[in-house]
């Protein structure tokens, strides 16, 4: 396994991990995401980003951590229905407040952010609001799905950079490990729509589709992860009722074996 970042400090290698609960991914990351990291999960539609992030939260909640899913584009009630069929899901996690869903549009409206383009002051307010919720609920894992939709309302590179930097710092300072879901087109040659997000995030996990022998496979590749050694190989991702399964992509083989 080649190291991702040759400049990684030895101390970082020993940082506490936040196990994703997805066995294959934790193996790739040598135990999980370094705690407090802000990771960009990026890919085109249908690649399993939301499912993976939900599973990350459910495993965290099952392990006793408080988890928050901030839904920007889809009503959280609908998302909750998606997570219920999983074998490992326990509805009590939501009832007991271990797994909390919040709709970003409600936050926007509550804070009076009704204009299509948010201001720099709005960015500060929005990040502060997220920080307040993390403090109030003692959140240890957070997902924003998707950060691209937030960036769409920020418009300028300056505001996007400001938002990603501040949200990353705010969450990291609170020991919260965060996944920012990023949407890109299948043909995109970078990892985020605006290019700014990928430069600032502590890690990038690229999810994609791969056509092989008439089958469309979902793939996952850890491109960058500060604070740990990791494999950069491409894996095949299978969505099963038992959760996500990852197996190495066999070059020239079917790649679909589970």
């Amino acid at each position, binding site marked *: 396994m080649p190291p991702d970042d040759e400049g990684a400090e030895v101390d970082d290698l020993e940082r506490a991990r936040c196990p994703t609960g997805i066995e294959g991914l934790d193996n790739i990351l040598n135990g999980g995401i370094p705690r407090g990291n802000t990771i960009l999960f990026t890919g085109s539609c249908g690649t399993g980003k939301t499912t993976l992030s939900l599973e990350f939260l459910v495993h965290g909640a099952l392990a006793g951590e408080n988890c928050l899913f901030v839904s920007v584009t889809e009503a959280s009630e609908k998302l909750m229905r998606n997570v219920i069929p999983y074998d490992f899901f326990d509805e009590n996690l939501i009832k007991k407040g271990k797994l*909390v869903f*919040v*709709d970003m549009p*409600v*936050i926007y*409206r*509550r*804070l*009076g952010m*009704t204009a299509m383009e948010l201001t720099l002051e709005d960015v500060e*307010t929005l990040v*502060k*609001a997220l920080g*307040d*919720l993390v403090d*109030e*609920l003692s959140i240890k894992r957070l997902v924003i799905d998707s950060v691209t939709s937030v960036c769409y309302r920020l418009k300028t590179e300056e505001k996007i950079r400001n938002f990603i930097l501040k949200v990353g710092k705010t969450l990291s300072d609170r020991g919260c490990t965060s996944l920012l879901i990023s949407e890109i087109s299948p043909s995109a040659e970078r990892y985020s729509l605006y290019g700014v997000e990928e430069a600032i995030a502590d890690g990038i996990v690229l999810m994609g589709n791969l056509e092989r022998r008439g089958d469309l496979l979902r793939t996952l590749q850890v491109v960058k992860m500060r604070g740990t050694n990791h494999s950069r190989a491409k894996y095949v991702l299978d969505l099963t009722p038992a959760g996500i399964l990852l197996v190495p992509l066999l070059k020239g083989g079917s790649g679909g074996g589970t």
Partner: protein
Amino acid sequence: MADSASFGIPALDKAIMDGVPKGYTILCIGTPGAGVELFAKRFASAGAENETVRYFSTSERDEDVLDTMKDFGWSTDLKIVNIGTMYYEKVLARHLDVSKYRLEGLTMRDLRQFEAEEYPEDEYVANFLTTLTYEVSKLTPPFRIVLDSLNFFLEYYPYNEVLSALRTVKAHTQHNEGVALVTLVKGVLDSRTESGIEEIVDVIIELERLRDGFEFKRNLLIRKVRNHPEKTGILAYTIDEKGISAKGV
């Protein structure tokens, strides 16, 4: 049904055509303190006995409008549509809410409570011009419309949209032989805006208050009467405990 509607000020009625002809829209314009709001209330009350009266208020509470009318002994048999109150409830009160959450921070309870209230998105951009024209469209003759004042709408909506709404009010009034009066504070808007409004209305009455030594001298200028330029002129008016009265000068 009479062919004209009384202003409630006999000398003014006489000076025009025994009142304002049915179907006409009047603009009452004046500087602050000239009595434009009181003129609007007098006009509304004058129609209360025989007409359906809708009084659109943008800056006074219902009780303030009614109390003023009662103080002068005028009829209050009319319906007030309080755009000012609606604006406060739907826009300003929420702005106050928002400033609180922006400064004090958000809690989960705030968010859950807000979700439960289920505010429709469009309430944030409630268009009170639409409220005005909708309320007007429901009126059947005989009716009398009073809108105090146009300045509110010009402050919050584009000029062309306000003019379009004014044309709608005028058209409904004209086709149904009602009467309408709109008020405007003079000197706040640019001349182009004022001229656009003056072009639409059929009658323009300007209330003028001038300082004369240690007292005010009040003039009522009949600046426009559509198709009757001979009716334009100047009256002197006074405001006392009995209300507004006018006489020729």
